[in-house]
């Protein structure tokens, strides 16, 4: 037998791995993973939302928003991250940039689509009542576009959570460590632990996002105002077309 068998207790269930003292403590990995995810999402949102709002409101440069989705999807994350590491060196930076680039298209596209989908009659009514341009955008268009914008964010979050594992590939922390180390140490259970934790985290984040969505999206738009039976199903972005899980 060439390789060691997995230890008796599966990695995920070994209490040892959950303590702070462990070389790779799972809580710490989760924390780091969340940090990368949050950082990437915040930066991506800070870029994509204003641009999406501009394009969606004015209708100008629409091709940017339409093509962003496709180009974003077709960029191989592993290639991107390798490229950045070689170009600017190791550390958090290249991984973060790759994640941000990954997260921008879904947010941008959905913000644009959300604004485009706003009933023109409501915008017309807003103007007709004497709202100024920015008032129209923020008090009418954005609230109505929120469900789509949120699903774009959720999509982006899911992709980033899954892809943040590549950070480990270039030596950073996060749950990717379990995959990369498991691979290097030939511990199947460690890889499984990584996969399970990432998937669990994705579900958790999606649930939280759903809760957030309930809070921020007006019931009048989300369909929750309608009777339960007639309720418009709002698909979880988990089930939505997403892309680019990697590493």
């Amino acid at each position: 037998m060439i390789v060691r068998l997995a230890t008796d207790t599966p990695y995920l269930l070994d209490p040892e791995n959950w303590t702070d003292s462990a070389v790779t403590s799972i809580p710490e990995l989760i924390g780091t993973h969340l940090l990368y995810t949050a950082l990437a999402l915040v930066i991506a949102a800070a870029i994509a939302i204003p641009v999406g709002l501009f394009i969606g409101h004015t209708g100008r440069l629409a091709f940017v928003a339409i093509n962003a989705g496709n180009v974003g999807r077709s960029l191989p994350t592993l290639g991107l991250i390798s490229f950045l590491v070689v170009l600017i060196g190791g550390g958090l930076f290249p991984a973060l940039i790759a994640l941000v680039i990954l997260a921008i298209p879904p947010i941008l596209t959905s913000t644009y689509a959300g604004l485009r989908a706003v009933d023109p009659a409501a915008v017309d009514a807003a103007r007709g009542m004497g709202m100024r341009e920015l008032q129209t955008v923020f008090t009418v268009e954005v609230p109505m576009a929120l469900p789509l914008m949120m699903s774009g964010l959720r999509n982006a979050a899911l992709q980033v959570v899954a892809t943040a594992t590549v950070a480990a590939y270039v030596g950073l922390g996060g749950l990717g460590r379990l995959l990369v180390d498991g691979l290097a140490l030939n511990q199947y259970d460690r890889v499984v632990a990584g996969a399970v934790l990432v998937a669990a985290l994705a579900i958790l984040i999606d649930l939280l996002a759903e809760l957030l969505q309930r809070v921020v999206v007006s019931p009048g738009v989300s369909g929750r105002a309608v009777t339960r039976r007639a309720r418009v199903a709002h698909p979880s972005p988990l089930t939505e077309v997403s892309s680019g899980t990697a590493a």
Partner: protein
Amino acid sequence: MIDYVIANENVILAALSQHIMLALVPIVLGALIALPIGFLAVRYGWLYHPLLNVSGLLYSIPSLALFLIIPGIIGTKILSPINIIVALTVYTVALLVRVVADGLRSVDGIVTQAASAMGYRRIRRFFEVELPIALPVMLAGLRVATVANISLVSVGALIGVGGLGALFTRGLQLRYLDPIIVGIVLSVLLAVLCDLVIVLVQRRLTPWTRVKGRS
């Protein structure tokens, strides 16, 4: 860059052809599997949400992890391209089930009723009315799946079967941009090309979506 391409022509071509195989076989398999599942999800409405949740869950598993877990489940060899193909097929199915279901659900009930009222029987109605009308939505989903698959294949390089991904790992090890750039460009080009092919197929298969509607 040119030098690199010339010097490594064989390596690049081999990587590219592996990439194409690894990306496209799952698309075909995935589409074939997703079609009946999507149909069932529409036929039996209660299946719709559970099926979508499962596919969403599958999609959130990191690809590297899936590549590594699959041989443990299906008993293939560790380096077998089958692992990558199965994993990507899983993603494709996860993505397309929803699309197929939504496509079929997008068919106007009035149209299917009109078909029945004109004397269509069930099966013929499905193939001659519902399926063609759902095609645009399905093909749009297929485009997404294809492009996503092409970019995902390269992750396989971390376990030695990654098509153009090998150029990324090599470039990283040698701290050498050329192979990385060549890999990215080829991967993106391949994605764009496949996308284009599907668009062309779509134009042929669904001429009615191209005509200009009246305001």
